[in-house]
């Protein structure tokens, strides 16, 4: 399979080309170019490592690590996403129209991840500045060790939400299972309502921000104390 030319048609059929062909072409794509990917068929690492302001529309379901480490690009996935969609994203936007498997947006530093459906366990694990908006609910241990950024959950959150959380902000509209260690409900101040309104608007959702509650760190486990031995 030869190299995919950059000035070739921007429609790539993954039944005709390999994911490596696609990714290498996307890595060289000029800013502003628009790409359409057909028949992803759950393959892994589709559109991973993009580093330019391009637009990629994927028609179907993707496997693990789709749009992994995205920088600047806008990636839209019409179906469901496997494990670690937009993991370690730095900037740009990833929009999953279906649901996402576990570890969506893991460790991501920036940009916006929108999941219209549900996200499974560990959504936003170790997030480092990304904003994530989930139209449905999230599974257990979401925002585990979340360091920075905001996670908006329009549905319910599973047990262990925000376990060992640092400075990330969590907004939940539905029910929350048992909170994780050192995660507590917090006052929703005007700056939080403003942030939440902005994120909902960017995700194309019209929920009333007043319906959400905010959760964050109690900051009781930031330093080691032997009295904390049974707190974790």
């Amino acid at each position: 399979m030869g190299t995919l030319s950059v000035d070739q048609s921007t429609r790539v059929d993954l039944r005709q080309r390999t994911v490596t062909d696609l990714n290498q072409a996307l890595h060289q794509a000029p800013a502003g170019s628009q790409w359409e990917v057909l028949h992803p068929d759950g393959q892994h690492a589709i559109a991973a490592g993009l580093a330019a302001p391009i637009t990629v529309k994927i028609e179907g379901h993707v496997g693990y690590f789709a749009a992994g480490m995205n920088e600047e690009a806008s990636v839209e996935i019409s179906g469901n996403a496997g494990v670690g969609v937009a993991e370690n994203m730095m900037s740009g936007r990833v929009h999953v129209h279906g649901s996402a498997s576990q570890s969506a947006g893991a460790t991501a530093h920036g940009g916006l991840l929108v999941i219209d459906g549900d996200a499974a366990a560990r959504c936003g694990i170790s997030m480092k500045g990304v904003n994530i908006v989930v139209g449905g609910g999230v599974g257990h241990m979401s925002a585990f060790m979340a360091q920075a950024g905001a996670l908006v959950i329009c549905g319910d959150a599973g047990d262990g939400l925000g376990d060992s959380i640092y400075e990330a902000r969590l907004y939940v509209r539905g029910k929350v299972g048992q909170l994780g260690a050192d995660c507590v409900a917090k006052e929703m101040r005007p700056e939080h309502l403003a942030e939440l309104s902005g994120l909902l608007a960017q995700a194309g959702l019209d929920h009333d921000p007043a319906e959400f509650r905010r959760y964050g760190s109690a900051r009781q486990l930031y330093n080691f104390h032997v009295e904390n031995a049974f707190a974790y």
Partner: protein
Amino acid sequence: MTAITTPDPAALGLRENATFDRATIAAIRHAAQTGLYDIRGGGAKRRLPHFDDLLFLGASMSRYPLEGYRERCDTDVTIGTRFAKKPLHLKTPVTIAGMSFGSLSGQAKEALGRGASEVGTSTTTGDGGMTEEERGHSETLVYQYLPSRYGMNPKHLRLADAIEVVLGQGAKPGGGGMLLGQKITERVAAMRTLPVGIDQRSACRHPDWTGPDDLRIKITELREITDWEKPIYVKIGASRPYYDVALAIKAGADAIVLDGMQGGTAATQDVFIEHVGIPTLAAIPQAVDALQEAGLHRQVQLIVSGGVRSGADVAKALALGADAVSIGTAALIALGDNDPALEDEYRKIGSAAGYYDDWQAGQDPAGITTQDPELSKRLDPVAAGHRLANLLRVMTMEAQIIARACGKAHLAHLEPEDLVALTIEAAAMTRRPLAGTDWIPGLAPAAQAAPVAPVAPVASAAPAGGGA
């Protein structure tokens, strides 16, 4: 220092308890008085079976030695030949192990880069990402990909010469990184997206994959992102090396980094360092078994670390089947760690030259394991880097001396047959015979070289307790 005025207790006929020795008594008293367990730097301190328990059989009547200092003995190694488009070519098999900026000062990271580059070998980042000090001064830089993903940036991934997926380290297989608040300065905190001054507890598991099947997909993603150019290492802390290496091979690793329990750490609980994991010596043969069974020994390179101090250790690791080694603690000592010239300063902080292991505390008088700008300034990266380069050259030359004595024109030609064991433990672990015998403990008699007497049938065995 004050002169000893009281007589040695042993001279009075007093006997120290081997179970409750003075260090144990001190640890129990400290725990009882403070409620604290010890967190420290360095690797296992206990005496362990190690490279010292092996000896080389120099050439003799049946082997042909090479002339020292005259006949060629090459030392280079290529890492990442399995899948990577751009394998690393190093002039010496002695590389610098992963150590983070944060645990080490910027000056120390620069010195490691300078020293490694001076002799044509690689250095490695650590938790917390890549700094300008190390990329700028390291000709060949391996970028660690850790569970915490602190400072993980795809730009740095592309700037790296190889990627090391870290599953664990020898000092604490199964444990995550740790950096105490004293070292979480504004710069370190900003790089790791953490509040200043917290006690950082890194994750021990990767956040987006679990198990070997997932690792295979993760490695593929890293290759896709870097266009299949970079060698991908998988680093494991030695605990079950046979299975871990077999699974890492299956997951598509280009190279395996195997770190034994003598491998150092910047900050780990003493109980973890001393009681979890297995010695480097015990781990190497199991890793080599897994590589050989996969038919990939020497194609997937094995890099061994954990207590490598000299050219003899390098030669022994290579003879057992490693392709390269990494040094961490020895490199820090070369930079100036535990320098006797700093004795008075070590005493002021409750330690002594040769004993200093509070690498977690950030008060290092040598300016190495600290983020204090005044202490860090004490380390001259140029001079320290040159000292490290000297050590790397000495280790390489020492290994060549041994290799020539064994008749080898390349360090990579050293082989298990060149070695014998000094202790029964080392013989059992390395499956080399005890020196002066043909005995390899644990091997079935049929596999031993010595003739074995036929086994008597059970019915005619002597009764229990019966004499001859």
